[in-house]
């Protein structure tokens, strides 16, 4: 199948009312959850130990795609796939993706479950940063030596003007790419790959940042994300056609499954988590995907700090299903406790969940608060910390059983704590000198020491 086949199917597939699609998806997810017995054992376990269950989850994802297809919200039509087309796409997924150029060129790889080789790492962004911070923030995240590529930012004002309407969106898209290029150059890493993060999802805005001199090069990328509930859109197919010709890599930021929405419970979230990365490749040719599963209801400040065993288990099932049966390069497999604000102690604790990423075969995504706030949803120390944690996990030889034990201890340690409100970057980090402010650094060192006592080797 080519992208033109997809384009045609968005126009010619059977019409369906969106509400009918939504409820049909729920019924199908329930049916597949039952058929493939995708049920949490309810024994407090954090990781799936049943390979057969992971393979059943994969089969459920395939059956979902073959039986229901995906829904194009632009045209109100269903795109259907044959089993052969789905399996051909899976076989065509690359296990390596080359990004960036010169000395900053990197190879993003599919990892094996539990592998101890160095992880690929997207250190930052996919977050809102205002224009006065943008180039300096980008420089800071690009300066992190383990960073393999950076995703872009979103913002509401450019050149002092509100971004409102397509002409301004196009301009802002080009500015975003230009700031990314400027930031990586200032960090001494001019060839570092950047991936455009959509200012808006309209096709002209999606392709506006392409500019070999000052914007997206052919060694850079773009986020073309699958929407929740197995939905796709024509503007992204249009963008995919252009970026495919350009040779840019494409990232599915919508690769995870959701619990609570029209996919239903954890079983549906797992099936969605398996299917959405495949949809990203089928429909947009996304060679890289986020992976995992999360709750649809966003957590708010004040939520209890706790690594939920069932959700952690769901993440491991999704990652195992994809890892055992596809070549897809995914960033994910981490787990988190609530959604604490950036720059806080509870955020640092939550990021310890990144020790699960190598166990689940995932590469690392940078820190990002779910309810992101302008200039207050991530900082470079958080990025370096989560990379430290994942690396320590590998060095310590942490396996699923040991990680489960560690997560249990973390939950005991965090008993009674609630997710803190976020902190503005200037209150915790010195971007000019690329270092945390003294109090924040003390907090980090305190947390690190405690985590080391729990069993992670940070040498």
């Amino acid at each position, binding site marked *: 199948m080519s992208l033109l086949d997809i384009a045609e199917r968005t126009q010619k597939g059977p019409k369906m009312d*969106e*509400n009918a699609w*939504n*409820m049909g998806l*729920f019924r199908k997810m329930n049916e597949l959850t039952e058929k493939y017995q995708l049920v949490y054992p309810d024994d407090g376990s954090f990781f799936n130990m049943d390979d057969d269950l992971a393979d059943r989850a994969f089969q459920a994802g395939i059956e979902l795609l073959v039986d229901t297809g995906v829904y194009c*919200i632009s045209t109100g039509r269903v795109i259907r796939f044959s089993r052969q087309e789905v399996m051909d796409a899976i076989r065509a997924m690359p296990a390596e993706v080359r990004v960036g150029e010169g000395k900053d060129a990197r190879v993003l790889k599919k990892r094996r479950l539990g592998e101890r080789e160095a992880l690929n790492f997207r250190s930052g962004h996919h977050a*809102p940063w205002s224009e006065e911070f943008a180039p300096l923030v980008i420089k800071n995240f690009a300066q992190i030596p383990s960073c393999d590529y950076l995703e872009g930012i*979103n*913002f*509401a004002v450019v050149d002092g003007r*509100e*971004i*409102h309407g*397509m002409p301004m*969106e196009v301009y*802002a898209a080009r500015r975003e790419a230009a700031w990314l290029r400027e930031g990586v150059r200032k960090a001494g890493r001019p060839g570092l790959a950047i991936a455009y993060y*959509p*200012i*808006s*999802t*309209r096709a002209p805005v999606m392709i506006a940042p392409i500019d070999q001199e000052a914007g997206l090069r052919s060694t850079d990328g773009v986020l073309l994300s699958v*929407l*929740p509930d197995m939905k796709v*859109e024509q503007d992204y197919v249009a963008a995919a056609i252009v970026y495919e010709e350009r040779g840019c890599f494409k990232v599915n930021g919508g690769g995870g499954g*959701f*619990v*609570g*929405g*029209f996919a*239903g*419970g954890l079983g549906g979230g797992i099936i969605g988590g398996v299917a959405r990365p495949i949809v990203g490749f089928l429909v947009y040719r996304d060679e890289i995907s986020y992976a995992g599963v999360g*709750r*649809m*209801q*966003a957590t*708010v400040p004040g939520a209890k700090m706790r690594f939920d065993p069932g959700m952690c288990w769901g993440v491991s099932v999704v990652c195992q299903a994809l890892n055992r049966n596809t070549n897809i390069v995914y960033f994910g497999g981490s787990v988190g406790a609530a959604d604490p604000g950036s720059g806080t102690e509870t955020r640092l604790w939550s990021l310890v969940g990144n020790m699960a990423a190598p166990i689940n075969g995932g590469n690392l995504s940078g820190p990002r608060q779910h*309810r*992101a*706030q*302008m200039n207050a949803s991530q900082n470079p120390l958080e990025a370096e910390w989560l990379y430290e944690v994942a690396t320590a996990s590998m060095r310590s030889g942490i396996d699923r059983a040991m990680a489960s034990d560690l997560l249990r201890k973390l939950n005991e340690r965090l008993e009674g704590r609630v997710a803190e409100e976020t902190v503005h970057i200037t209150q915790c980090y010195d971007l000019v000198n690329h270092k945390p402010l003294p109090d924040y650094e003390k907090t980090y060192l305190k947390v690190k020491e405690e985590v080391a006592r729990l069993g992670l080797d940070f040498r």
Partner: protein
Amino acid sequence: MAKENETREALETLRAAILQYDVEAARSAAQAVVDRGIDPMLAIREAIAGSTDILHRRFDSGECYLPHLVMAGDAMTAASQVLESAIPRESVPAKKVVVIGTVEADLHSVGKNIVAMMLRSAGFEVHDLGVDVKSSAFVTRARETGADIIALSCLMTTTRPYQREVIEELEAAGLRDRFKVIVGGGPITREWASHIGADGYGADAMEGLEVAKRLVGIGT
């Protein structure tokens, strides 16, 4: 006493049908209420409206999901239709009307869907315009339906100016005072809502629902 027990039982049966998301059972239970001469307004208040809080708590705690709100809404609608047919037309309480959608250039629908379902299950008449909705479309539909509230969702920082645009269109048409406007979504804050002159803001769906109820004088 026997009559009281019978009433309590009938209302409980109706409430149970809604909480089991069973449209046919809700319809039958509502008919049983009418057949037994029980005050239909009482049934609407206690069994239908009374189910709402339970449903919303279940959803918030993760015990039920968005489709359950849809099905419960369908069950409530089915029951309401039966009960309202037994009430003199002039006594049927007029439903408060909400026009909801995700603003122009924004395709995110998850948050909007949750709020729409919660409003519906709380007894509002909801007109969901979907996603990428032009500002003028909100105004047009609000006028056509005699809406009480226009609810605007967005999930991208760059699309939030369209929330302000809807308010500006209302002002330009001399309609600002006719409709309450509430806003929500990931990048939206109370400060933004105040800045653009919105009447209300919800940090999450539950708060959005409470704000909507307060704005139209329900449950105050």
